[in-house]
């Protein structure tokens, strides 16, 4: 990659937007996952009986739906990321590449 290409891409507003928004989105989702997981595991470390509380009159405890919910949350978060990254972000990325090629072609003339 030449310095010229680097400068072109770095100054492209779409590239800046792509990097900014995708990073923000990725970190946001990562933090959600980390908070959910560590809240769960630290609850177990500090107060395991909380998850052992029975729901209603049955034997099923709060921990069961909470645990299953975390599995679903993990799956849903990946789905959210893939949808936006493969749609919106990839479109931006394609634009950046196309614009780069146009600019380089123009300069080559």
């Amino acid at each position: 990659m030449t310095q010229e290409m680097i400068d072109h891409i770095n100054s492209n507003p779409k590239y800046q937007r792509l990097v900014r928004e995708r990073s923000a989105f990725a970190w946001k989702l990562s933090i959600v996952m980390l908070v959910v997981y560590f809240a769960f595991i630290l609850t177990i470390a500090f107060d395991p009986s909380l998850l052992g509380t029975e729901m209603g009159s049955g034997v099923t405890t709060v921990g069961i739906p909470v645990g299953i919910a975390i599995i679903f949350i993990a799956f849903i978060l990946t789905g959210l990321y893939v949808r936006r990254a493969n749609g919106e972000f990839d479109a931006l990325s394609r634009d950046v590449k196309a614009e780069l090629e146009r600019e380089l072609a123009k300069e080559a003339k």
Partner: protein
Amino acid sequence: MKQLLVLLFALPAALMASGAIEGAVEKQPLNISAIVMFLVFVGATLGITYWAAKRTKTAKDFYTAGGGITGFQNGMAIAGDYMSAASFLGISGLVYLKGYDGLIYSIGFLVGWPLILFLVAERLRNLGKYTFADVASFRLKQTPIRTLAAFGSIATVTLYLIAQMVGSGKLIQILFGLPYEVAVILVGILMILYVTFGGMLATTWVQIIKAGLLLSGATFMAIAVMAHFGFSFEALFAKAVEVHPTHDAIMSPGGLVSDPVSAISLGIALMFGTAGLPHILMRFFTVSDAKEARKSVFFATGFIGYFYILTFIIGFGAIVMVATNPHYLDAAGALIGGNNMAAIHLSHAVGGNFFLGFISAVAFATILAVVSGLTLAGASAISHDLYANVFRRGQVDEMQEMRISKMATVAMGIVAIFLGIAFEKQNIAFMVGLAFAIAASANFPVLFLSMYWKKLTTRGAVIGGSLGLATAVLLVILGPIVWVDILGNAEAVFPYKYPALFSVAVAFIGIWFFSVTDSSADGEAEREAFEAQNIRSQTGIGAEGAVSH
């Protein structure tokens, strides 16, 4: 029997993509239906290997199946790598024994995946070619970084392989009634055949087929259990609480994760360790682009999460339908073959001899698929990182590199067979935990910072990564599992079972310190090269593309 459980208590990480069955096991009578189904599987996979061999012509084919695997296929294969025999039998066995605690581990193994997707997958795909060392050494010095990465890869893979080979020998002894050595040699030879001739393409398809079989079998078992209880979880749990020796304790956390330091350390080991496993990272180079790489994690997370829910149901089903049936118990009232056999016995309880044979064959297939992936990752580190890029400084023709990787595969297979036999009677419970600790403390920090941190230099990566590696090894040796359980000392020097919190911190701090204090001209050039690397990692411009077949 008690030894069979050492692993479950001592080393949850072992449950993951690998693990082992500990202690002496009794050889069982030959199980004909299992052997017939297993032979069908072997025949089919050798057929695939033959097909794949004809399509494996270049190094790219060999290492990455030509980059032509789809996101869905790769997701299945990743899930296959994760759903090892130890994971299937170990987690369902843990649920059988402890109830809710099994779910806690499953969740720990799963939550690393979203993070791999958000932070690692697409950058890895955009920057790498065959191994994660390609990415780590992208703008750093090839020789030291690749040597470190290859060393981390080979250590991780070898520890895993030993655990896997020993576990497979014992499992096959129980399931098929074959002698231990025969089982280990058989696994070794088949895996050498798959990998040497079929490369990544055969390895991937073996993994996909096995994942499909395992998911189908587990689904059938879970449905059979639920049907027994009118599809009511409350009815299943109520009956389990009634018959389980600890009664309602199985419905709440049972103290396997007791203090906050262990909890956080375990979490870090599982997340960062997963993101530092060479055979998992290598899977991201088998797809054509970042888009497919992302899709593969989405599918993998779905399959793995679904699988863990199934194992939870299977474990509870076994409490009710296996533990209450004297047919599956020995004279002392314990499960024949140990608690890890809960799922196997349940397959007989819900589907008779035929289904027992099916599940046994699937368990064997699972071992074969996982060891093949491990061997390929290890062989790639030897041929691509050490031979082609360190020893020959990148001046090597492709056919020669591929020959070396095939030789490395055969060598790794033979070494795995010997180690598998040598370690038959050893306590290997620490091995997968150590593999995880090394992956989390040496492979992951270097890989992650190389992609995210501009100021990383070769000096920082090499010193920090080595410090992380050394700390992980040292703390595992001084910890309760090796120092007390294996070496027989009264008290552990290092009190925690999971060193990751400390060793990962050492690695990150070491890399940071020795990078920012690196004022060499080379270090400056490496910082400047980040810009170009970052653009490629963000957009895929210049990335390794797919090759059509």
